[in-house]
């Protein structure tokens, strides 16, 4: 049947679109209809089912910080996903506590999503609460002052901006804390 399509342009167009749309629709429109956790915000009150907590929408300050994160392309070098790999749960963990893996219901309010594809720097999916504002101020001004060997660019124009810096830090401190996985190890405590 397909042999006819190299003489008939109309037949070709129909066949090419049918072939494409089978996979196209089944992998984009259908999956969120089947897996409801993609759209339902995380909430768990039962410690026997894993970490407790509730996903809340971002505050205005966090949203503003998130815009800075998008604008500066932080997501080209930092992923935001603790994968189902043992090493990821150690690396996203803190002071010996392994972090829970990332699940779709933790990202319902993320727009644009910041999962990322490349880890030139460490994953940030559970970075919230690990370092205080002063640490971030020094680190953004020149990362190599705190982390010798780092290749992260300096961002003095963010540190010197009294509106953007607190917003960006607020966003960073929020990341990964909707699952309450390390109640005793925050820098604040």
């Amino acid at each position, binding site marked *: 049947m397909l042999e006819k399509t190299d003489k008939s342009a109309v037949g*070709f167009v129909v066949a090419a679109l049918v072939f494409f749309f089978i996979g196209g629709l089944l*992998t984009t429109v259908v999956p969120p209809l089947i897996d409801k956790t993609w759209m339902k915000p995380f909430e768990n009150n039962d410690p026997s089912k894993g970490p407790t907590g509730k996903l809340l929408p971002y505050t205005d300050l966090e949203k503003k910080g998130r815009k800075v994160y998008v604008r500066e*392309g932080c997501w080209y070098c930092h992923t935001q*996903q603790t994968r189902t790999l*043992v090493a990821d749960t150690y690396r996203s963990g803190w002071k010996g506590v392994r972090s829970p893996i990332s699940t779709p219901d933790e*990202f319902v309010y993320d727009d644009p999503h910041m999962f990322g594809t*490349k880890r*030139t720097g460490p994953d940030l999916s559970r970075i919230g609460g690990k370092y205080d504002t002063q640490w971030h101020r020094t680190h953004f001004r020149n990362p190599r002052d705190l982390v010798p060997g780092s*290749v992260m660019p300096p961002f003095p124009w963010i540190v010197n901006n009294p509106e953007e810096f607190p917003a960006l830090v607020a966003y960073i401190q929020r990341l990964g804390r909707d699952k309450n996985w390390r109640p005793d190890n925050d820098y604040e405590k």
Partner: protein
Amino acid sequence: MPEELQMKSPGVAATPLYDEPHEDTTAKWFLISSIAYFFIVGIIALTIAAKFVWPSLLGTVPVLTYGRLRPLHVNGMLFGWLLAADMGLAYYLVPRLCGVKLFSEKLGVATAVIWNIIVLGAVVMLPLGLNKGWEYAELPLPLVLLVLVAWIMFAINIFGTIATRKYEQMYVSLWYTMGTILWTTFVYPTGNVAVFFTTGVNQANLNWMYVHNAVGLIFTPIGLGLAYYFIPKAANTPLYSHKLSMVGFWSLAFVYVWTGAHHMLHGPISQWLQTISIAFSLMLLIPVWTVVYNFFATMKGQWHQLRENVPLKFLMSGVVFYLLTCFQGPMHSLRSVNAIVSKTDWIPGHAHMAVLGAFSFFAIAGSYYAIPRMFKTKLYSDALANWSFWFLMIGGLGFFVTLWLGGFWQGWQWNNPSIPFIDTVVALKPVWTVRFFSGVLMFAGITCFLFNVMATVVNSGGKQQAALRPAVAPAQ
């Protein structure tokens, strides 16, 4: 037998039945501007590669920071250079394969003008931080709408030409060009418009459908369309098998679109969707090996031409890179391999082999073949063309191979959580240094390519000496 094969590909035959004089104005506009962007964006590429070696370089100027220049590098190379060059070559080969003039040169030139506005708009807007935040889909919305307008104009011109064709049978390059146009019309808005109506994992799934198919259903089919046209042309030999080319095309049309979720393996996306994407990623070996076998079989008895024929050198090394990159792809999608290489520096090594090593090599070969013919002259220098090949080949191999080795090593280190993350960064510094100097070699190749093309164009104007010289290749 050769006659029969030539009949199967009437437009590719050494002596076409219909010999329309072609204006090629649109093709010239697209090709010349795209090659200029190849060079300009090459400077951006070198700058960001240098930032890995000297991280404070230009570090206090916001518009020159890594996070602002990287999207310019990616979008500039993909849309300013490669897609524009592919479109230019489509404007060249479609009328020839149809035995008629291009449907409308005026519409084509208008398309080229819009395309240049898009690229120049991106050069201004991306460094200012106007970034939508999705990979490959960074361009701000006004530019996205312009891309869609230009794409529809391109579609009208190509389908208009095909509708008036004199050869009933459509050669395989026409299928790939039409496929690219049809699929892009849906793939591009999925990644650039539909994402606005979703969030989180749902959005990421659409984003990866687009990112994967920007390569799989835009650059792959248009690039293979070029290879199907220019390999028989440059080697002056008929295509090995029409039937194999059909198997390759229709399996690609069915299989590619399913694989987007393999970009989030082990990540927060449904396991069953990951498994589907893995199964279809493995099936990609069918279209790839079919097409590559067809190209190699076409070259049977013709390999000696690689010694002298520069377009053929680019084409056949492009085919080898295509085979390798499309073997890596399905292997990366296996969960065990993915746990090592995903998110590491292996991935840019893999991506550059596809987009530079395979598809840019096809577009460069097409440019070297088509530009002298469009300007009715001879290539300025075959020796310089040969230099551009070896600079790009050695620089490219240096880039790909060091990043694979470094990325694999990095992946093993990450999987041992007792190694602090910063140690895995420091370990990669020699790799990034080699990558930068490989980039310098690649840039030297791009410079030779640009100079050669520009000198050819300049020499073709005014002086009549071109007509006195013999044609470049015995073909045509």
